[in-house]
């Protein structure tokens, strides 16, 4: 790697780091998930009673139609029908998220703005385990590649979920819930070949572990091609991943349930930063144990224990070894008929060792961070139709001490078919290693572009939100939310007293937006979803600041996004789907707007065998999603897959 690269690359990358803004994707929960239920459930046919979701996302059992927040649930079955191959494909369906493919191996994913490769305001959880790395408070999506076949559903909460979900949940929470092991699932094989994703092979075997308990072993291998750059050269971004998942669980309603899952993953990726002739490599393992006792729908306990480890190495550039331990206990109980309370206590320890290089330095090169959290929430039935939720989270981190994150939510059921909700929240993003400890050396010894900054403070947000969910008829559902956020102490690049560059907290500004979703079932076998989102973010350095980075790095989110998804169950065995999406331009990245279309056809040939064929990004040869078009371009591609159970 030449010297010129040493000096220029980090700056180019830096300019991408500090960003801001928002938006959304499509939709999914079936109409049923959001449908307002009749007061008298005996009016429903038995089949529909069986479909009612009786537990949900607010951690205290609550039907989605009553949740006072911008929530969307995407069922796993929907992901399989639309041919999703990576969690990002699924998140593209969610109204209110920004999802962009940076290259063949990396994604930029954010909720309500600030999108970048290092998005740090979105909490992502897999079965309750947080997937972010405290290095930059974001998710390494190329490594956290959760098999779509294992997903039971994905819950997306836009806006701050910080009171319940922690200091990363400043702009949103994504909860990925995997399927429970069930002995009836038996053995399954799933194979995909395609143009973009070269191939993927998955095999699973489920076994009975005795009464109400089951065990599942799941193995996966997948490989993705490198993308082509704007000048028709080949990118250095191919990726191969192997993973093994083991899950055991026991489900006994009214008694204790437990689940233990173990994952081991290995990924090998091309990387432009890696020394000539070497690959970036990541290996990791995680174990997650959950124990729950639900005495009745309003009274329960849950205990989570988590440990994970990963080792990421980009030879010659940077390496990270991280070990984490976490535990959380929470208790839900009712006080009389009016109060449903939730209490929780959690602790997480994250230790890292960084392999510094001449290009990137973390000082110190090893750190142990402890986070202690206490949270509480009370859902108060003010009247038959009005419910008030008060929540707060106290979180202690090693950099800035205690942070308080309160929120208040109000749900008002206007009629059995419509609900208005409003919320006000304060959320904080605690500093991470990049904020505080990052050094970028210059080309000469003793010269630095960026030096570490021990005074980097917490980023803060205040959110006001309001939403309406209305079931116009059995076939037509309407869901809209509006928000306004006020940000202070936002990250940028400034200079210290010696004139050296530092990561600073001198940005402030506001965002506002609208997210709307219409779910229409014109015929019993046709479902149409129309989504639109508007987002606007304006950030500035505070008066007197030397920060010049923010002005040119806060327009990395599309102002307008729209989705149109049409699904048709043509026969009992054939399902077809056409997904259209429009994503507006990203001015600060020079990315043009684009409109793309995916088409998938699924055919259940026999009870045990199904096949599907599909095409992605069919409207153009290729398009850029997170650069000015000169770098990686996402191609049109075809795909074939089969699923076989026996």
């Amino acid at each position: 790697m030449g010297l010129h690269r040493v000096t220029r690359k980090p700056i180019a990358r830096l300019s991408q780091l500090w960003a801001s803004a928002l938006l959304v994707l499509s939709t999914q929960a079936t109409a049923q998930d959001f449908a307002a239920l009749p007061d008298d459930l005996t009016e429903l046919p038995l089949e529909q009673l069986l479909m009612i979701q009786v537990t949900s996302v607010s951690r205290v059992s609550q039907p989605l139609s009553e949740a006072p927040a911008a929530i969307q649930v995407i069922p796993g079955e929907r992901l399989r029908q639309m041919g999703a191959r990576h969690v990002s494909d699924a998140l593209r369906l969610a109204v209110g998220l920004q999802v962009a493919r940076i290259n063949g191996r990396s994604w930029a994913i954010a909720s309500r703005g600030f999108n970048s490769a290092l998005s740090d305001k979105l909490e992502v959880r897999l079965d309750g385990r947080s997937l972010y790395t405290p290095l930059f408070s974001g998710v390494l999506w190329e490594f956290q590649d959760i098999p779509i076949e294992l997903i039971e559903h994905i819950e997306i909460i836009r806006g701050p979920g910080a009171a319940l979900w922690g200091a990363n949940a400043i702009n949103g929470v994504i909860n990925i819930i995997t399927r429970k092991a069930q002995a009836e699932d038996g053995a399954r094989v799933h194979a995909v070949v395609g143009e973009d994703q070269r191939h993927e092979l998955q095999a699973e075997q489920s076994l009975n572990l005795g009464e109400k308990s089951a065990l599942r072993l799941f193995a996966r291998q997948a490989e993705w091609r490198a993308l082509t750059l704007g000048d028709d050269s080949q990118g250095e971004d191919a990726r191969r991943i192997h993973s093994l998942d083991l899950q055991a669980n026991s489900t006994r309603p009214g008694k204790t349930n437990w689940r233990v899952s173990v994952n081991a993953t290995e990924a090998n990726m091309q990387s432009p930063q890696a020394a000539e002739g070497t690959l970036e490599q990541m290996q990791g393992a995680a174990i997650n144990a959950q124990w729950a006792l639900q005495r009745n729908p309003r009274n329960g306990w849950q205990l989570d224990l988590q440990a994970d480890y990963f080792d990421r190495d980009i030879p010659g550039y940077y390496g990270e070894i991280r070990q984490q331990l976490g535990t959380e206990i929470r208790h839900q109980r009712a006080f009389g008929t009016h109060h449903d309370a939730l209490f929780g206590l959690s602790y997480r320890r994250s230790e890292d060792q960084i392999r510094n290089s001449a290009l990137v330095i973390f000082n110190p090169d090893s750190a142990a961070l402890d986070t202690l959290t206490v949270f509480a929430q009370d859902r108060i039935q003010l009247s038959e139709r009005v419910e008030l939720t008060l929540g707060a989270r106290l979180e202690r981190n090693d950099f800035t001490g205690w942070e308080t994150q309160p929120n208040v939510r109000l749900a008002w059921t206007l009629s059995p078919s419509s609900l208005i909700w409003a919320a006000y929240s304060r959320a904080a993003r605690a500093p991470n290693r990049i904020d505080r400890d990052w050094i970028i050396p210059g080309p000469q010894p003793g010269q630095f572009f960026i030096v570490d900054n021990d005074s980097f403070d917490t980023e803060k947000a205040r959110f006001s939100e309001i939403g309406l969910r209305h079931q116009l008829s059995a076939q037509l559902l309407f869901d809209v939310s509006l928000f306004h956020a006020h940000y202070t102490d936002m990250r940028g690049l400034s200079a210290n007293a010696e004139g050296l560059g530092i990561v600073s907290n001198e940005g402030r500004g506001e965002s506002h937006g609208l997210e709307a979703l219409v779910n229409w079932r014109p015929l019993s076998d046709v479902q149409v979803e129309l989504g639109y989102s508007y987002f606007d973010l304006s950030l500035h350095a505070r008066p007197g600041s030397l920060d010049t980075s923010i002005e040119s790095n806060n327009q990395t989110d599309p102002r307008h996004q729209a989705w149109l998804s049409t699904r048709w169950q043509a026969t009992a065995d054939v399902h077809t789907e056409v997904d259209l999406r429009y994503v507006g331009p990203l001015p600060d990245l020079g990315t043009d707007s684009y409109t793309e279309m995916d088409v998938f056809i699924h055919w259940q040939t026999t009870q045990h065998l199904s096949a599907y064929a599909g095409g992605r990004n069919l409207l153009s040869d290729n398009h850029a999603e997170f650069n000015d078009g000169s770098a990686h371009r996402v191609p049109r591609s075809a795909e074939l897959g089969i699923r076989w159970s026996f």
Partner: protein
Amino acid sequence: MRALLIKLATLALALTGLGTSSSTWAQDARLEDRVRAAFLYNFARFTQWSTPHTDRQLGFCVAGDADLLDTLRTTIRGKNINGHTLLAFDAELIDIETQCDVLYVGSSAAANVLETVATRTLLVGEGRGFAQSRGMVGFVLQQERLRFVVNPQHVEQAGLKLSAELLSLADIVSPLETSL
């Protein structure tokens, strides 16, 4: 925004009235109990008793779950099944043998509640294990939804008949399962 919230809350409270009577609270039951109650009603609708307790009434009894009992009372109020008036009782306060056509056994019901059960009572409880051991229908929570498991052997031994429609939606306990 704070002003807006307060305005909204005030408006909501003014429109709905804070001091609503206790009867309206019954409708605030958690969804899960409302679904359970609707299932119990449907189970009765799809069950044939060879010898009904009385010709005019059909009794639902609940043991060990006061919340569900409240919800069930609301659910069945004003309804009938084949001309039978529906009643809901606390199983601990009543003669199960003569009054209960359907008995729901909650997780915290007394251990001996099943000892006094007449053969012709439809026994509903929680979990597959309930249907396997002594009961006929067990609720299971699967993928956040309530499903039910039926043990046809026990149903038949009690002289009851469940409709094909109900059985087609149930998870069935196989004879093998209960003999192991």
